């Protein structure tokens, strides 16, 4: 058995990313607690981060001899920063909503209804 076949390839990373994303998606669709939804969104963002980094690593052709580029990593860092900001805003909103409604259940938040 060739060990190189066992080595962790791009598809493995993508699989992990996809699983993480699906879990996050499920959370967003199914959870009732708004905090949990926010956390699920974080999961999805992190899934994307994994994809970014993985693609950056594997798409770079080692034989081309050019310098290693960090576009994917930078993108991932960007996402992390934005996610942090988003969580800050999101949680602030959640707190105000909670103060108004005494609830974190999204089923009760239907003010956008027709």
């Amino acid at each position, binding site marked *: 058995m060739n060990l190189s076949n066992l080595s962790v390839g791009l598809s493995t990373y993508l699989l992990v990313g996809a699983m993480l994303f699906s879990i996050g*998606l499920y959370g*967003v*669709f*199914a959870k009732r607690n708004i905090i949990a*939804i926010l956390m699920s969104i974080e999961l999805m963002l992190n899934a994307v981060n994994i994809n970014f980094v993985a693609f950056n690593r594997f798409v770079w052709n080692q034989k081309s001899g050019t310098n290693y580029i960090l576009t994917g990593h930078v993108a991932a860092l960007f996402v992390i920063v934005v996610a942090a900001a988003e969580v800050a805003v999101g949680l602030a909103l959640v707190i105000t909503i909670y103060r108004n409604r005494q609830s974190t259940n*999204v*089923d009760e*938040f*239907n*003010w*956008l*209804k*027709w």
Partner: protein
Amino acid sequence: MFKEMHDLFRWAWLIPALPFLSFLLIAFVTKRSKGLSSTVSILAILASLGLAIAIAIGIIQSGAEIVEHAAIVNVNWLNIGGLKIDFGTVVDPLSGMMLFVVSLVASMVQIYSLGYMHGDKGWSRYYCYQSLFAASMLGMVLATNLLQLFIFWELVGLCSYLLIGFWYFKVSAREAAKKAFMTTRVGDFGLLLGMLFLYTKFGTLDFATLAAILNTNIQNVAVIGTASYVTVMAFLVFMGPVGKSGQFPLHVWLPDAMEGPTPVSALIHAATMVVAGVYLVARMYFLFVHASPSALQFVADIGAFTAIFAASIAIAQDDIKRILAYSTLSQLGYMMFALGVGSYSGSMFHLMTHAFFKALMFLGAGSVIHALHEKQNIWDMGGLWKKMPITGWTFFIGVMAISGVPPFAGFFSKDEILATALQNGHPVVYAVGLFTAFLTAFYMSRLFFVAFCGPEKPENHPHESPWSMTIPLIILAFFSVVGGWAALPDHNFAFFLHYLPLGQEYEREAINWGLAGISVIAGLLGIGLAYIIYLKKAIAAESIVARFPRVYKVLQNKYYVDEFYLWIINNIMGGVAKVLYWFDIYVIDGIINGIAFITRGSAKTLRRTSTGQLQTYAMVFFFAVVIIFMVFAFGEGQLTSLNPLATLGGVK
């Protein structure tokens, strides 16, 4: 001689222009000053009368030359692609005669109105309308083409509308004015169509050019159905005169038009405007001659029928103005059938004499009404001759003239028409005309005997009218006596005014005294019968009525034609209008509102999809992205066919 006269004829446009100027002056400047308004108006019409007389003398002096070559002046009025219309004046014996008659009667009526309309609140308005009417009527007479004639034709209609409804606070006057306009409009519809077809076919509406074209290539006319093009056009053109001159189916407006002031009835609804139809047929006579004989036969039939129809109604009427109105209808029928049987000059002759004596009688009736304070029923009058000698005598002359008693004017013209009818092979029309002459003499003398002779009514205190009213009566009475002498000695009138088919020579004809005798006897019989019944009371009128109650009722109700039209207008037209309105509101608007309702309903249903739940939105969003991705990934080339512009052939 003709050359110098031609210079005079070039100024004919002044005849309508002067009253028009006076119309503008009264409308914009002098309307606040009553005296000034009437002065301006009368001066203008008198000046026109002077010019008209000058032109008439010029025509007589020019003699045969003007008969063959009319003096025509044309100025371009409208010139666009496919339509070129001139405005101009034509001076020939026909227009000369009309100019004289119209301006004479108009000036008499305006002078007469000084007395009759005295103290009326709408004095300036009255003279304003009178001036406009004179301008339009004189302009119509001078028209060189059909469109110009039509324009003035409609304008006299407008003046008639305004003057019938002069006392607009009276509901009856208002309704009569409306009726007059609408009824003549029906006729104008045909005239308008005829005009359009004429222009489409011949490319001109000019009378002289049209006549020349019709005279040269009469073979070229196309055939529509069984009737030739020209015949169809002749029938269409004739619809206009039927409306304007009150021929049978469209006669209903004229008796109602008597709601206007009496001088107006005399001017517009007896002497001038209503003969416009006869004038038009005379102007367009070439069209009728070149059409198939059925066209002229139709004119004759309609005319003869109207003559006897209206005369029979006149027998059973009690209102003095209505009797005169039906008599006018009957005489218009006379002129019309005269044209139909080919008595062109007879018709025009009768037009002239009728204008004199009918205007005279209307003004006489006005004088009576004025004296009796708006009483119009002849049975409320009686013995007026003694109290109002001038009115009585002049009215007597009028009655004699219309009854065809020599040497009064009506005798000559009526006799000529009847003689021509018989000679040109229309025995039935001749018989109808003769009987109508008898009826005419009968009802006119009935009116005269009842109103002017017999015992006086104690409740009436009549007095002779002022000079402003009696002088016009005397002048018109003078013309009613001597007007007919134009036919003497060997028919000078017909020498000037005749229609000749191309290539024939005019022959003077003397009066046929034999035929004339018959019609005189018919007239005298009528007068005699009326004398026996109404003056001698040898036969009681009541017993005749009692013997034929139905006939009397039908006659008194004018054969129920008005009721029939009213029924059509109210039930058929009104009904259709209501149905269509219903259709518009509930079907067309219903569809529109239905679409709006469907939109609103579907929106009401569809808005349930927006639950307000963030998670639902996210789910829909996600799966939509997945589907679009699938389409892009696996359905290559499918999207371009969804592009609507591609189907329009815009982009490739």
